[in-house]
């Protein structure tokens, strides 16, 4: 990024918003179709009942909740990059945080659909919200699911606001280059930002506080998601390590998806000089850390399952590794805690191919982690006579693909209509233009 000027950054980012080619519409259209397909399958399921999916007694939660946890996890990297690393003053976040943050918002929105999809009676889903009513029917705030509703909606609200606040100065910049209808839209979206120092003064503080609020929020959200499981007494779920372990896992998968998406993005938008290999390397290091944490959690859970002497816990853990879902289990172990160790080698964490392969494998592994945790624990609980194996049907698969369609459609739309790299913050880490020699101290 050395040697770039404010103007160059400004222009090259705004250039990414140039009118798209037909191919772009084809892609967006494809994802929109995929999304519509998923919605139709959902509608089919609502009409016919949840029985058309593969979920069954005793595995009452299946791919839907797996996807929910997966998408919430994906969301976490965005907030990590935009808020936590902001507080830690890590410069490598600047060029990637916008797209990561967009991912957060879209991923939370995608994730948020799954609890609805999995409901037996989605048409009364609003009963989970604390809406005042004359019947005094309130939700049960002791339920982890209500904690989840509150946490996820808070997360969606806060991350969306944070995202929009971050966008304001950039949209003002885009506004100045745009013409016609676009200009009008960007003008409205820019909230009349002019970049006066009076505005910057409040903006800076607000941004800091947002970051300070988002940081514990992001940790709490996945903790709450983990408590959806840990607060139960299901063997393999009831585990105190779940909260930190899920948070680490969430960041693990989220960063992996950021890498997976940014590698093609920076190529397409030709912004390799802004999103550099150094950014990826930093992310790879964090992935290495989260991979180690996840590996630690796997190991300690196994050891303590044995140590506890609880026959149900022990049976679950044995069965995970050797039973019907062993392939999924070993996929998870290898992809999440073995493969990331490759990032110990600088060659791999600085090679685009290496990064791409490892990050995709981590995403696969993290999906399977949730799958293994949810399904294996439920399938082999306390009473052997009530055991039963689960496998998804076309309904679950269709809806899952639909949700990918939704997410990617939004992401592609975002990439073309909003600056996917933060113009302001990238400028901030450039050397301040000074007549007497520049320095990037700020």
């Amino acid at each position, binding site marked *: 990024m050395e040697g770039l000027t404010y103007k160059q950054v400004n222009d090259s980012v705004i250039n990414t918003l140039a009118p798209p080619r037909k191919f772009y519409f084809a892609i967006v259209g494809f994802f929109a179709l995929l999304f519509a397909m998923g919605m139709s399958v959902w509608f089919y399921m609502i009409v016919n009942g949840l029985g058309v999916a593969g979920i069954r007694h005793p595995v009452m939660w299946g791919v839907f909740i797996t996807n929910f946890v997966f998408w919430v996890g994906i969301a976490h990297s965005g907030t990590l990059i935009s808020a936590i690393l902001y507080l830690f003053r890590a410069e490598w976040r600047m060029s990637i945080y916008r797209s990561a943050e967009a991912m957060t918002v879209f991923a939370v929105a995608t994730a948020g659909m799954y609890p609805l999809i999995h409901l037996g009676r989605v048409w009364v889903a609003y009963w989970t919200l604390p809406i005042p009513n004359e019947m005094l029917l309130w939700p*049960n705030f002791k339920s982890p699911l209500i904690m989840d509703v509150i946490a996820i909606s808070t997360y969606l609200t806060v991350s969306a606001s944070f995202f929009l606040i971050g966008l304001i100065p950039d949209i003002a910049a885009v506004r100045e280059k745009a013409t016609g209808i676009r200009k009008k839209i960007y003008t409205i979206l820019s909230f009349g930002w002019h970049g006066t120092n009076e505005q910057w003064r409040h903006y800076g503080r607000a941004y800091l506080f947002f970051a300070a609020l988002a940081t514990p929020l992001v940790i709490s959200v996945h903790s709450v998601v983990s408590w959806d499981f840990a607060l139960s007494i299901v063997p393999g779920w009831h585990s105190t390590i779940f909260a930190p372990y899920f948070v680490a896992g969430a960041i693990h998968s989220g960063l992996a998806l950021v890498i997976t998406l940014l590698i093609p993005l920076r190529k397409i938008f030709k912004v390799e000089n802004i999103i550099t290999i150094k950014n990826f390397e930093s992310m790879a290091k964090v992935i290495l850390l989260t991979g180690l944490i996840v590996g630690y959690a796997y190991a300690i859970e196994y050891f303590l399952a044995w140590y506890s002497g609880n026959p149900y816990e022990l049976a679950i853990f044995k069965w995970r590794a050797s039973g019907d879902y062993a392939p999924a289990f070993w996929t998870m172990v290898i992809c999440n805690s073995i493969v990331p160790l490759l990032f110990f080698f600088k060659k791999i964490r600085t090679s685009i191919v290496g990064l791409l392969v490892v990050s995709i494998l981590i995403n696969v592994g993290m999906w399977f982690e949730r799958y293994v945790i949810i399904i294996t624990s439920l399938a082999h609980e306390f009473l052997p006579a009530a055991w039963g194996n689960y496998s998804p049907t076309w309904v679950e698969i269709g809806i899952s693909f639909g949700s990918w369609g939704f997410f990617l459609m939004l992401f592609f739309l975002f990439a073309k209509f909003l600056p996917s790299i933060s113009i302001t913050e990238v400028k901030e880490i450039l050397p301040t233009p000074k007549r007497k020699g520049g320095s990037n101290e700020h």
Partner: protein
Amino acid sequence: MDRKTFLQILGLTGAGIVSGCKTDTQRLIIPYVIPPQEIVPGIANWYASSCRECPAGCGLLVRCREGRAVKVEGNPEHPINQGKLCARGQATLQELYNPDRLITAQMRNAEGNFVSLETEIAIKQIGNHVKSLVSQKAAKEIAMITSLNSGSLANCADEFMNSIGGEKPVIYEAVNYSAIKSACNKVFGKNIVPKMSLQDADMILSIGADFLETYVSPVEFARQFADNSDAKEGRKSVFIYAGATLSMTGNVADKWIQIPAGGEKLFALSLLNEICKLNPNPIAKNFSEGFSADSVAGKIFISPNDIKQTAKLLVKAKRPIVMGGLMCDEETQIAIMLINSIIGAISKTVFLNNPLSYSNISTDEEVEALIKKCLEGTIDTLFILQTNPIFTMPKHFRFDEALKKIRMVVAFTPMLNETTEYSNYVIPTNTPLEDWDEYQPDASIRNYQQPVMESVFGVSSTGDYLLEIFKSVTGKTLNNSATYYDFIRANSKSSDVEWKQILGKGFSSKNISVSETPKILAANLLKPKIQAMNFDAIYFITTPSYKYYDGRGANKPWISEIPDASSSIVWENYVSLNSKYAELHGIKNHDIVELTTSEGSIEIPAKVSTDIEYHSVAIAFGFGHTKFGRYGTNVGFSPLPLLSKNLWSASTIKIKNTGKWTRLISPSDTDLQYQRGISQAVLLSEIGKDKKHHEDLNMYPKVQHETYRWGMTVDLDKCIGCGACIAACYAENNIPTVGKELISKGREMQWLRIERYREDEFADYGNRYIPMMCQHCENAPCEPVCPVYAAYHSKDGLNVQVYNRCIGTRYCSNNCPYKVRRFNWFSYEHPHPTHLQLNPDVTVRDKGVMEKCTFCVQRIVEARDKAKDEGRLVRDGEIKPACVQTCPTNALVFGNLLDEESLVSKLKNNPRAYRPIEEYNTRSAITYLQKVVKDDYAPKKKNKV
């Protein structure tokens, strides 16, 4: 408003066209307990009636709401079942409301297809036909074959045939005890099937008699058996089961003597021989000469000691009984009768003075004689009353050919079956709950049935039809009875006051004087003929299914959906193979094997287990209907093609693995309990010792209950795994049946299931049962996780599920360690008229909500409100959830745990008491009592749970 109008307003009887002949009888039915009044909406009427699912003759109470029967229960005053019912009895409602019942008569047209016509017209046509025969003096060409009826319908049929000059009706039952009857005749000169009783029996030997399932009077036997094996300290009662298969009955035995199918005769004779050595009897000695245990045991692959010990026990016992199953032929039954006589069972446990209704069943010879006449073409018209011989008669009888020869076959039946396929007329009849009838299970009891509701399809009873035909033939009334009701009324020979009492009670009984024990008649006893068993041969046997009896129960999905007690398989049957044999021949579970006998062959899936003797294979009878309504058709396989003459006796068979494969559906994948101590057993001598202590630790203050804390105890020593509780639960709580496809996907809806585990504490064989339903935990893990308070703990200790509030997150089910919650995956259909059976006190759940056992909260509320009105507390035993109410062995007890004096509280403190998964601090309201294994009969212990 009278009942009829009310029904019409409710629009419940779409086909409510009432035939004119019966309206005048409608008013006279007498409700049980409640005086005859008009129906009050919301208040149930109870009517006494009688169960006709098998000839045992249990008394019923029928609960009617708004003029429709919604539940049947055993009549507590009835001497046979004392308030209890089996699964088949509970499911009798599904006969009543079967959607495939006929509405109008069917007549076969020239093309051989059925056409509907008004039943009255059909009756007229039949009447005219009979009239013409009678007028042609060809009345002898009229014959009748009927199911077992003793009492008015039998009299009516007899008199009908007699009056028009036809043949005496033949009474046909597939499950008949003619071997016992003739054995009794030969030994004692009494041509009867004697009444048997297990009351206070201290030594029971069953030679293939499945007395807890289908044998003679299973509900009665189950109750008596459980009563006298009530786990008292050092109890003496012993039960030995000798047979090829470890049936549900054999499973509760202290000892199983594995004799190959067909080896029963040798076993019985050698036992008789040994008993004669201990307790000499010249006639018996002579009869069993040469069958000493030492010489016989090897031929039936058992140890001589098994026979000798059994003989000793029988001789020593005060009230012993030996029962011979359906597969025992006449000579075997003679040996058994002689044993019973020698050991002093007669008049203690076997009552020759009280013949059972089974005695009336025609012998095979009589049936064959009728068929012979048909084949010879001397029968023109055959009435078939409520029986389905085509399904149950082996081909030797050539009944199908016989029917083809007959010009006019008239079948009286509620719905089409295999036999109606050969009929010219099918007359739709009422089911037993819809009409008047009378039945005598034995000489001491007369059961009366009243129409507890309007005929669902507006048809009439068999008796009324016979009277109608008689009227159109002769122009007169039979016995001066305009209706069948009059016939019964006259038959009862009672005053109006008595009649009212009888109807209210549902039965009349009289004492039978105990006669002298008859002498054994030596003259009739010929030396038995014997064939030794062949080591290489495999013997095949079929026994009536405890679910379907002789097949008549196969159209009731509640029963079909109850997992089989010995294999947990639903909706289907299979051939049981010994696991060693199967291993040797490379046959695994679910493999389709081809069975071939001299008569024919069938293909059927195999189920491998140790519950069958090595040389034997067995198939449950009653499956494999080809025409029996939507629920009964093509369910499982019928072994009929393999059989020659006698349905139940053993024959040699060849087994071939076809290499094909199917999936037998079972709701549970495993039968091991992995030493989790879910269904526990304890040695009699170790009761109360070695109990795990669970700390009473709680993070939160203890839950305080007001006045009541409902709870239950389940005595696993009494539970026989019969599934009556499940059927009762289906009936009471509007639980849908889902079919085997959905069960294979884990979508069964039973609130109460009986988990079946193979013993792992005591090695070798046997199933261990544990009824599992909502445990109504004090610290219920399901409750706090619900986001909308749909699950909560009520003040009287119930774990409540509010269907209307449920949004279907299913977390409660995930967090339930007992996995007793059921989710409505779909909106389940209740096709017309099955919806009439739905209990109006219980919500019908729609898709997307969770449901589970409520302890029959509707009954609790009703009793509690009543007690409140009367200013008292609910009395112990006043509330009985459906499962508790029907349990034939009284294994389930319900009551208030806060009341120290209640039975349930006392049982809870029994030293055998335990709660599964107690270490998870659920504090469930259901306490289980360990099964007791007698030390002498305990198989070698494996590792302790």
